[in-house]
């Protein structure tokens, strides 16, 4: 029989599937043919390899290795099982252990257990080892084991004999205790490659163990742990309490940061909401602005004069709720009032500058005209947002813009559509900036800060409105000689602080710094100690303002400008915030600083002769 004829029979020869006649032929051929013999061995090894694979079913044979790979493994597995039966008949029994968790198996002395899943090894002395999947454990004696890799939990039964666990050059000696040993292989890459070293980690649950290597030893008690490097250097691990103690301050810091973060997040949400509201309003305004333009397309309006007043307002779109607030104002009358004031301004300004009394006739006319403006104030009081007492509502850009519009229309120079749109846009921007500013304020924001912010926002808004004016319109509503002068320019936002800003003359005899001390101690009520603490802030305040002081004679002390008010108020708000940081939060002085609306506008006092 040739090799070619015989080869297909070899597999069946191995599984005893041949007819007796074929089997005879194969048995006769093999001694003559090393090639077919090798082929037979190759088939045998394939079957051994299959037997060493883990089954797909739940039943999982224990893989016991001795030396090489799966070829050697299967040979050994067969030998060990049989060997154990003989061992049972012998007098001198070597150590053996029972392995449970997969298929129940015995682990003989010198054998290696490679756990493919969680396994429990029970030693004859009653000690127990639980290993996790991937652990490699060798039984070295009745109370001696080696953990080559992986994690093992040891519960040692006390019987007077020492119990020894070897792990990569280290030893754990115990009498009776429970502990955990982990041999962690260190690889170049976490997923592949050969191990280049191993760390041994021991943690004691109960009792005492001695963890030793060639380089040293550590006695470990319950709750303690240590690790050994490949080189055998043993390091104690921090206990839970030690870790907790170390973490405590970090934990506290985390809490503080978290609270801060939450606060900022809430602020961000509020701001985002406000921006969204503003955008929605702006979109609505754009739509509203487009509508009349489209309507006007077929027949262009012959005049650019604004259409007849709707609800009494020329400038609208600052926000519906605010427009509603202004419905009751008689704008025609208000416009007349403004128009009546302007012709007298030059005479009034001249009298003030010269320190002379104003002509009683002029004074009477101004009073009558001013009454018409006061009517506005009476109508809008409390209906528009402001931080100021007095002219807060009156100086709102919506009021000023409408008053100006009426004044201009009265003088035959009304706003055209484009100007009205521009004014409205400025108003919308003011409203958005106002909302953003309010969202930024906290409990420690002084009222003066809010007031000055309002002043700045109104200044910026009205500057934009002013930029829209034609030269002819400027002639009507701007009194150039005294624009933005306190108590004189009715269109200036400086009117806002008419009740809040306190002019203060300073001189070499009465320097600013000394004035600030008096303000802080007498008006705000700072104690002597508080005053000392506040001193750096007061110094800074004086340092900023001193070089910028405007010279003025006594009669012009109150005629400071919008720019001076902003400058002085900002410096004071800065100082107030600094001082609040050094004051006890619940002190009366702190409360006063937070709630006052009064601020100082210092000017350098000069004699009439100097001027």
């Amino acid at each position, binding site marked *: 029989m040739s090799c070619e004829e015989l080869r*297909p029979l070899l597999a069946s020869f191995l599984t005893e599937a041949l007819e007796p006649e074929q089997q005879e032929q194969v048995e006769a051929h093999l001694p003559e043919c090393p090639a077919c013999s090798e082929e037979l061995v190759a088939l*045998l090894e394939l079957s051994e*390899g299959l037997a060493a694979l883990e089954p797909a079913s739940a039943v999982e044979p224990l893989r016991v290795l001795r030396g090489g790979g799966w070829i050697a493994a299967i040979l050994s597995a067969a030998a060990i099982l049989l060997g154990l039966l003989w061992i049972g008949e012998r007098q001198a029994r070597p150590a053996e252990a029972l392995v449970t968790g997969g298929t129940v198996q015995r682990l003989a002395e010198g054998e290696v257990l490679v756990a493919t899943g969680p396994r429990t090894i029970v030693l004859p002395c009653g000690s127990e080892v639980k290993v996790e999947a991937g652990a490699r454990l060798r039984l070295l004696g009745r109370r001696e084991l080696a953990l080559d890799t992986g994690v093992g939990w040891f519960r040692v039964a006390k019987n007077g004999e020492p119990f020894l666990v070897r792990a990569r050059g280290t030893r754990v000696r115990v009498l009776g205790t429970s502990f955990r040993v982990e041999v962690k292989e260190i690889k170049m890459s976490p997923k592949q490659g050969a191990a280049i070293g191993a760390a041994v980690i021991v943690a004691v649950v109960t009792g005492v163990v001695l963890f030793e290597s060639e380089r040293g030893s550590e006695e470990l008690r319950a709750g303690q742990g240590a690790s050994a490097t490949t080189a055998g250097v043993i390091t104690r691990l921090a206990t839970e309490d030690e870790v907790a103690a170390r973490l405590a301050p970090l934990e506290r810091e985390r809490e503080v940061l978290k609270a801060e973060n939450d606060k900022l997040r809430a602020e961000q949400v509020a701001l985002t909401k406000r921006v969204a509201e503003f955008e929605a309003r702006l979109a609505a305004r754009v739509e509203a602005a487009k509508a009349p333009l489209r309507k006007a397309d077929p027949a262009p309006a012959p005049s650019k004069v604004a259409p007849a007043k709707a609800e009494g307002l020329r400038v609208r779109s600052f926000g519906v709720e605010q427009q509603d607030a202004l419905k009751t104002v008689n704008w025609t009358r208000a416009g007349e009032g403004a128009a009546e004031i302007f012709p007298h301004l030059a005479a009034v300004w001249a009298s003030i500058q010269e320190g002379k009394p104003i002509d009683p006739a002029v004074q009477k006319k101004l009073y009558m005209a001013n009454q018409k403006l006061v009517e506005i104030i009476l109508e809008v009081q409390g209906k528009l947002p402001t931080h100021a007492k007095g002219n807060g509502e009156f100086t709102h850009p919506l009021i000023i813009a409408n008053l100006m519009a009426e004044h201009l229309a009265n003088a035959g120079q009304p706003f055209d559509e484009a100007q009205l749109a521009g004014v409205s846009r400025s108003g919308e921007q003011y409203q958005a900036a106002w909302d953003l500013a309010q969202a930024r304020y906290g409990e420690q924001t002084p009222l003066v800060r809010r007031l000055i912010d309002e002043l700045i926002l109104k200044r910026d808004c009205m500057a934009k409105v002013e930029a829209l004016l034609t030269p002819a319109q400027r002639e009507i509503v701007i009194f150039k000689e005294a624009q933005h002068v306190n108590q004189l320019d009715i269109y200036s936002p400086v009117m806002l602080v008419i009740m809040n800003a306190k002019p203060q003359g300073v001189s070499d005899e009465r320097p600013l710094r000394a004035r600030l001390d008096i303000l802080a101690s007498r008006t705000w009520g700072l104690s002597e100690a508080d005053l000392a603490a506040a001193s750096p802030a007061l110094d800074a305040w004086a340092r900023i303002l001193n070089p910028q002081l405007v010279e003025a004679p006594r009669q012009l002390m109150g005629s400071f400008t919008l720019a001076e008010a902003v400058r002085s108020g900002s410096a004071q708000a800065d100082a107030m915030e600094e001082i609040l940081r050094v004051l006890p939060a619940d002190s009366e002085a702190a409360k006063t600083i937070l709630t006052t609306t009064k601020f100082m506008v210092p000017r350098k006092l000069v004699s009439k002769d100097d001027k």
Partner: protein
Amino acid sequence: MARREPVSQEIELELENTLRARLVAYAARTLGGHSGAEDVAQEALLAAQRAGIQSPGWLYAVTYRRAVDRLRRDGRASVAHEQLARKVTSEPSAESVATRRDDARQLRERLEDVGEPFRTALRLRYLDSLSFADVAQRQGTPERTARSRVARGLAQLRELFGASA
């Protein structure tokens, strides 16, 4: 060198006249002389008894492998035997170490390429360690068919591995 372990009388008697003699002859032929042939055959029989296997084919294969192993240890292995010897030596070459690492993975992959019902027969017999009788019962066939199926499965697997196995 070979340990004489107690072997049950029944097996000893059954095998002595027929199979045992043939295995000794086979070993002697492979070894190129009677020296050691007895030991090799004895080791194979012992291994069969321990593994609970009575297949002559299995015994022939193990006998041949042990004979080649012995030849190699004695430094008498022929070139033809050298290839096989490397697979069973206790000091494997670098090449076979690398091969062994991939053995299980490769085997599992190639097993998937074996056709049915032979693949299931292989699984039941070797991975699940069932006897041929149990394999037959699981597959609802006579035992002889089960043995055939396992054989054909092994042959297919051998083909899949080609000459490299």
